[in-house]
Structure formats: C-alpha cells, structure tokens
C-alpha cells in the first residue's frame, strides 16, 4: 500500500509461430506489463504485420458490432488458442466483405432518405411553378437559345456561384430553401452552357431531374409524385429487409469474429512495445510481480511443455525511472487514488502517498470546516449524489463525517457556537491556541515529508542527495534545529545550544553540497550555493507558516457565520430564519469549495512537491475482455 510491488523483468523466448499463444498465456496470467528490453540481437519485429492486420480487423469488428447493436464483450471459450496471422488475414477479408455489405445497405437507406427529401422539394417546386405560370416544357426544351438548369446548391456557395456564373453570362434565381440547400434556376446562353458545367459541379450543384410529367400538366405531375412516393416507400421497405437480412446473415459470423479478434489482442498490443525477434525466434519482454513468478512458470509449462525459455531479472534501483509501478489499494482507499494520480504516479520504489494523503486531507478539511450541521449536509448531499458521482462520493461522505467530528470538538452547529459545548476548544474563543496548533501540525507534516524524501533518495541510490541536500538529512537537521531554536526563543523549551548547533551544521552541510554540485566558475558557484542555501531556509519556514491557513479557515468559518447572524438579527422572524438558511447554504457551497481546494493545495505544494516525483509509469497489464 505504501510502495509499488517488487517487480521482475522477464524475457520469454518462444518460436515465432507460437508468439500469439505466448501473449495469450501472459494475458490470461493477468499481471504482465509489456516493455521493451529484448537483447539487441533480436532486431526484428515479428508481430508488426500481426498488429497491422489486427488493427484493421478490430476496427471492422467494432463497426459491425455497432451496426448489429452489440456492445457486450465476447464470450471466450475455455482453452481457446490465439489465431495465427493467416487466420487473422482470412478473418480480416471476411470482415471487409461483411462491412462492405452493411455499408452498402446503410448507403441504400441514406439514398432513400435523400430521395424522400428530393420528392418533398419537387412537390414544393411544383406548387411554386404553378403560381409562376411558367410553361416548363418551353423553358426546358433542349433546342432553345436559353440553357436552363433547375437544382440545389449549398447555401454557403450561392453568392460566389452567382458571381462566377455572371462571368459566363448566366443568371441564378432562387425559389426555395430547405435546411442548408438553396433551390434555384440557372439560365444563360446555350452556347456557353458547357463552360459552366464544371463550375456547377465544383459548387456542389445537384440537378433536379424534372420528369416529363411535370413539364406537361400539373395534375399529371401530382399523380406522378404520388406514384413515385409509393415506389420509394416500397424500396425503403425492401432496403430495411436487406439491412435486417445482412445483419442476421453476418451476426453468427460476427460473434466468432469478435472472439478471434479478442484472442489476437494480446500479441497485437504487446507488439507495440514488448515483442522482438529474429528468424523463427520471438521474444516477449515486460514486467511481472516477483511473487507471481512461480505461477507464470506453471502457466507456461502447461501450455508449452518446456518448449520455451524464460529469463528473469530483478528490477534494479537505477532503472526506477523506466520501471512501471504496480500498487494495490484496499477498496475503501480507491476513491482517493485519482486525487493523488492527478499530481502524478509514484515512481517505482517511491513512497506511495495515497494512504497518508487520504487521512491528512480529511483531517485538514475537517479542521478548516468543523461544523456538525454543515458536515451533516455534505454527508446527505454526497449520499444522494452517489449514483452520479460514483466512488468520488465516498470522499464527500468521509469529509462530511470528519467535519461533523470537528464540529463536536469545536462546539459548532450551523454556525451557532452556543448550542453545544465544545469537547475540545472553540476557535473563536482560542484563536492563538488554534494558530499554534496549526503551525505545530505543519512542523510535523514537513518533518514527515523530509523523512519520506530521504527514504526515496536512498532507495533510488542518490545517497549524497539523501544526506546533504536541502530536502535530505542536512535539510532536516537544519529544520529541526531552527524550529527548536525558535521554540526556545519563544520560551517553549529551555534547550538552546544543541538546537543552534544542529541548525548551523545542517545549513553548512547544505551550502557545501550546493557548492560541490554546482558546475560553474568560483563566482557563480558561490552565488548559486548562497542563494540556494538561503532558499532552503526561507522555503521550509514559508511552507510551515502556510499551515496557519488551517487555523485561519477555521476562524473564517466562524466569522462567516457571525456575519450571517448579524445580517439576520435586524430582520423579522421569517426574514431572520430565511437569512440564516440562505447564509448557511452560501457557507457550505462557497467556503466548503474553497476549503476543499485549500486542503488539496496544502497536500500538493507543501507535501507532495517535497518528496513525490510523480513521474512514474503506470503498470498496464495485458488483458482480455471476456464476458465471463
């Protein structure tokens, strides 16, 4: 829980023809994270073609599944083997054909919809042309001096099309608009008609075929339109049948295809990082937990009966930056994991701060927002919103309970300080004490972060930094010494000399370390080490004083409630209670939000920034999506 599980590096050598099955075994194993550390001699990528084919097949399978409204993962049969490249290519060809049929059926449906729109427009055209009293037969005759086009064009192209047509002596006149299509008549000299054909096509012009019936008698045209609609409706039914038939024809094949694609996934995904080879040999490399080595050997033995070679090598501390982090959390801690991950992933071997984060975050929130009533409201709201918020709601519930606990300690309920007696102390009546406690908490918190930092540096082999840097043992000595000296000056302790000596020794050690570490001329070295040493002191104390905000917010909480009561006191009974209710809503929403952010800020900047690099690599295991 406090650090990533110890991992070992594996290299599994098998025959290239069995690479897909080896990847499948590793995926069933469940905790294999592919990574590239195969020997340099294995310079080929034997799974590249496999991955390319799989990507195509997976994309087609997903589209077909969408067409057939299938969303659940496939049911993988026990003991199923991974497909070979040949199998996968055959499947891909079948999927291509199936998808083409589905797309063709879909295109048929789209065409029908377009035809219906077209018939609607034609009907409207007919109505409009009737009013115009135009003899269409005369207008559209092919031997006239005037060339006429009737059709539609995207509205955005109309202006420019009109300007361009005018250059060829053509006019454009619109008579209807449907959605983003403008229906228009284009007319001009017949001898220049060829010249504008390319232009019209470029502008996306769609000619409206005017049937001979429309050119003769309006009644005949209407009858023609009714007949056309019947015909389109019949075609629509036929297209629906085709689509249904296509779906049912391919459905059983699709189920099998989804299984095959899923069984091929492990090698295809591992191919991105962890598969290398040469000739007939393939090597799958990656990371697994040390405690699962025996289980992996058993699984491999069961499948390959000794026809494999497994290299195992423990993770080295100098490889921490490239080793993935696998951390297990108890279920109750998982809602806090995203808050830590939003800062970063713990590096392999680094202290994982999720557990202390959860406790300290709740503690800080409760201390800054201690109120039985307000905490209760947060608990109720988080519970009511559980379905929408998911696991995050647990943070709200826990924060609400801690807020209620501090409300009991402070004797505060909906801002009223005199309803129940405080079990511990009232911030309003003991501000100095509250500020002192906040600073003491800050000292403890920063000391803890420095200790964790020392441990992290020692683990990663940076011993000098762990001992002498400002965030190391020397910095800690300076900090404890300086805090003790200030406590002595404030009269909190009688011990003086040991603290001064400790602080001075720590500071000198940090200064020497900075001077040694700085690679520059003597002047720049002195300047840099002086400034960085000074910064060590100022930073540590500024960060400690930052914790005064915990006390400030607990006082602020009371002050806001007092302001609400002052506003309410001048009003009648209804106004009084209405103001108090609204004031409490404002306090919960506004101050609650600010306190939640401030607690997070304290954790990130005064805590994590001191010891947590957050540049770890997540352990992403190779997995199968199985309905079971």
């Amino acid at each position, binding site marked *: 829980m406090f650090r990533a599980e110890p991992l070992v590096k594996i290299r599994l050598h098998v025959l290239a023809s069995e690479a897909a099955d080896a990847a499948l075994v590793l995926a069933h194993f469940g905790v294999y994270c592919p990574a590239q550390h195969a020997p340099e001699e294995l310079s080929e990528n034997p799974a590249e073609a496999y991955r390319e084919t799989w990507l195509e097949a997976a994309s087609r399978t997903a589209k077909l599944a969408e067409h057939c409204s299938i969303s659940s993962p496939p049911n993988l049969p026990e003991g199923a083997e991974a497909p070979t490249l040949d199998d996968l290519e055959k499947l891909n060809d079948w999927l291509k054909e199936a998808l083409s049929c589905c797309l063709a059926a879909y295109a048929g449906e789209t065409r029908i919809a377009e035809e219906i729109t077209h018939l609607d427009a034609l009907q409207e055209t007919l109505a409009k042309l009737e009013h115009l009293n135009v003899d269409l037969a005369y207008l559209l005759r092919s031997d006239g001096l005037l060339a006429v086009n009737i059709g539609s064009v995207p509205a955005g192209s109309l202006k420019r099309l009109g300007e361009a047509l005018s250059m060829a002596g053509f006019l454009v006149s619109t008579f209807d608009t449907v959605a983003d299509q403008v229906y228009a008549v284009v007319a001009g000299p017949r001898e220049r008609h060829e010249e*504008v054909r390319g232009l019209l096509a470029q502008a996306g012009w769609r000619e409206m075929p005017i049937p001979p019936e429309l050119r003769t008698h309006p009644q005949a045209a209407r009858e023609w339109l009714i007949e056309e609609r019947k015909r389109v409706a019949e075609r629509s039914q036929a297209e629906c049948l085709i689509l249904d038939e296509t779906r049912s024809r391919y459905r059983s094949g699709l189920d099998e295809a989804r299984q095959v694609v899923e069984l091929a996934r492990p090698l295809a995904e591992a191919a991105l990082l962890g598969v290398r080879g040469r000739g007939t040999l393939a090597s799958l490399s990656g990371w697994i937990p040390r405690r699962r080595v025996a289980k992996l050997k058993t699984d491999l033995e069961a499948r390959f009966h000794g026809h494999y070679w497994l290299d195992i090598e423990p993770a080295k501390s100098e490889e921490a930056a490239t080793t993935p982090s696998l951390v297990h959390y108890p279920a109750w801690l998982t809602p806090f994991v995203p808050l830590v991950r939003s800062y970063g992933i713990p590096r392999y071997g680094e202290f994982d701060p999720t557990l202390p984060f959860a406790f300290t975050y709740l503690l800080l929130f409760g201390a800054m927002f201690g109120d039985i009533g307000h905490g209760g409201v947060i608990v109720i709201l988080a519970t009511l919103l559980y379905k929408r918020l998911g696991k995050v709601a647990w943070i709200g519930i826990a924060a609400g309970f801690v807020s209620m606990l501090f409300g009991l300690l402070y004797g505060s309920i909906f801002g009223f300080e005199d309803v129940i007696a405080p079990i511990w102390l009232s911030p309003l009546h003991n501000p100095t004490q509250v500020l002192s406690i906040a600073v003491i908490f800050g000292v403890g918190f920063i000391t803890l972060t420095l200790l964790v930092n020392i441990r992290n540096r020692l683990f990663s082999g940076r011993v000098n930094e762990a001992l002498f840097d400002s965030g190391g043992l020397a910095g800690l000595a300076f900090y404890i010494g300086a805090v003790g000296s200030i406590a002595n000056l404030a009269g909190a302790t009688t011990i003086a000399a040991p603290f001064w000596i400790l602080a001075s020794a720590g500071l000198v050690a940090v200064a020497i370390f900075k001077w040694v570490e700085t690679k520059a001329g003597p002047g720049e070295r002195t300047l840099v080490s002086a400034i960085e040493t000074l910064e060590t002191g100022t930073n540590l104390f500024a960060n400690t004083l930052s914790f005064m905000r915990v006390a400030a917010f607990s006082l602020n909480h009371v002050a806001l409630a007092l302001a609400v009561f002052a506003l309410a006191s001048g009003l009648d009974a209804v106004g009084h209670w209405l103001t108090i209710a609204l004031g409490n809503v404002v306090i919960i929403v506004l101050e609650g939000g600010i306190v939640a952010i401030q607690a997070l800020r304290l954790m990130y900047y005064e805590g994590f920034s001191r010891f947590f690099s957050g540049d770890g690599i997540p352990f992403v295991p190779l997995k199968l999506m199985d309905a079971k």
Partner: protein
Amino acid sequence: MHAYLNTRVSLFAGRLWQPADYDALLDADEAGVAGVLTDRGLPQLATGFAGRDSRSLEQILIAQLINETNVLIRPLSGDQRNFLLFWTGRFEISNVKTLLRGKMTGERPAALLSRLTPMGAFGRLDMQELAHTEDMNELFRRLEAGPYASIVRPAQRAFAETHDPFLLDAALDRGFYEGLEQRALPLESAAGASFRRLMGALIDRINLVWLLRYRFNYGLPPAQVYYLLMASRYSLPASQLRRLAALDTLEAVLEALPEPLHGLLQGVTGIAEVYNRLERSAAEEARKVLHSGSPAISRAFAYLLLRWRELRSVRAVLRGRHLDLPTAKILLAMYDAGAGRA
C-alpha cells in the same frame, strides 16, 4: 501577456538563419552537417539526416514548427489563439488530403498512417479512426462530423459531382484559407496595419498564383477559376479577380494587376517566378514586421511565416546534398521552392 509573447518572439527571431548559415550547411562536409544543424538550433535534424526519406524529413520540420507554435500560443487567448491554432491546422488539412488520396487508391491503414504528419497537441482528428475507414464515403462521413466539417463538406459535394481529385484538393485549400481569413478579420482591427499587411501578402499571393495556374496551366474557364479563388479583401478583391480571370494571357493578367503587385511583377515571364517574387516580397514584409514594434500577435505570425520558409530552405539543402546535387542546383531548388536566399 504581450510582453511575454514579445520576448519569446524576439528570442526565436534571434535563431532565424542568416545567409551565412546556409553557406555553412552547403559547404560543410558530411561529418560536419550534424554540427551545423545542432549549432543553428535544429538538433532534431542532426540525427540521421542523411538516411531520412523526404517524408520523415518533412515530418521533423513540421514537428519543429508545431513545437515553436505551441510555445508562442501559450500566453494567447480568444481570437489570437484561435487564429494561430487554425493556421497550424493547415498541416492537419494536409493529412486529410493524404487520407483521402490513400482511400482513393485503397492504401492500407498502416501505410497511410506512416505518411501522416504527427500533430502533437494540435491534433484535432483521430487519425487512427480515419485511417481505418472502409472507403471515401465513410471517411467523408466521419470528417463531416469533425472539427473541419465546414471545410470538408463543400469539398465532398464537389468531389461527389466531379470525382476529380484535383478539384477536391482545390476545394479543401480554398476552405482552409477562407477560414483563415475569417479568423484574421477580428485581429486586423485589433492588431492594426501590420497584421493586415501580412495577411494581404499571403492571400494575394495564393489567389494570384492559383488564378494563373488554374487559368493557364489547367485551362479552366474564367467563371470556374473565379469560383475556385478565395473571397479576398486585400489588393485583389472580388471585382479585380473576376476581371483578371477573364483575361486570356499571362502577360495580360500581369499587365492588368494593380499596384504594388504590378510593379513587383515587372518583367516576369512564368508562373513559378510570380510565386518566387511574391514569396520573397511577403518574406520581406514579414521581416519588417518581426523587427518592428508591431503588436505581439503580428510579430508572432511574421516569425512563423519566416520560420516555415527557412525550414523549407534547410530541407531543400539537405535533400540536395542527399542526392549529391551540385551547389548551384541546390541553390536553384531553394529558389524554386520560393525559400531561397534572395
């Protein structure tokens, strides 16, 4: 915010190559090329430059420009940010063209993906998904549901009616530059004359070169040529473009150009030379804006224009060297690319 951007632009401007830098690259022996590139701020090109094919070289150059644009847009917001984001989108439009051509020829997704330019943080399209579409229809459908719908839709209509890849490319280019003009409009009033001059030089150059190519290389009729040009509000507005498109010879078009274009193109005999002169003139204008006290966004845009021109020159030199061309030919190639030292 503007002080930060101005400082950034000034720092970047200090890295722009001088004629002597090109000479150093041309004169360096094979072992020294990597050093020249590293010393002059292009370390990414220094590794394995010789073995690279032209496509991966182009990808590295674009990645370099995208990284620098990323730094420049960091302090920007609103219209200024939108403009530079859209300007960088031209590489993504180029990817769209590659995808469409790939689908026309039935290219496999993996091969297609390897030819696309990685857009990094500027990528707005899911290239994996687009490359795995079954055909042009599906690709168009997905593109029309994406961020470039307004550019793709007219192009799709044009292609559906003509099935002409040339007209498809022309429609995509026109859609992109008209989008750029729209986004430049609010900046022209806010950032003033310097920004307008940069945009004017860019749009006028593109419009005039397109006009000449469509009219005299491809022999399109005047009305169609005019339709394929951008609606411009600079030196060549719509009325002027209509008049020019109706003329029958290159000489007549050049003669009918308004000043300053007429003076600038005196004595030009071919379309390539028109492009080169206008390119150099635009670069000169960008250099003036970059080294002036113009608003930060104008200077940033000027820098990006100059930087891309410079990167193209470096590419011309590296490719020339790779093909063992004599220096004179490499210089000519740089000149023909409109990116030469002049």
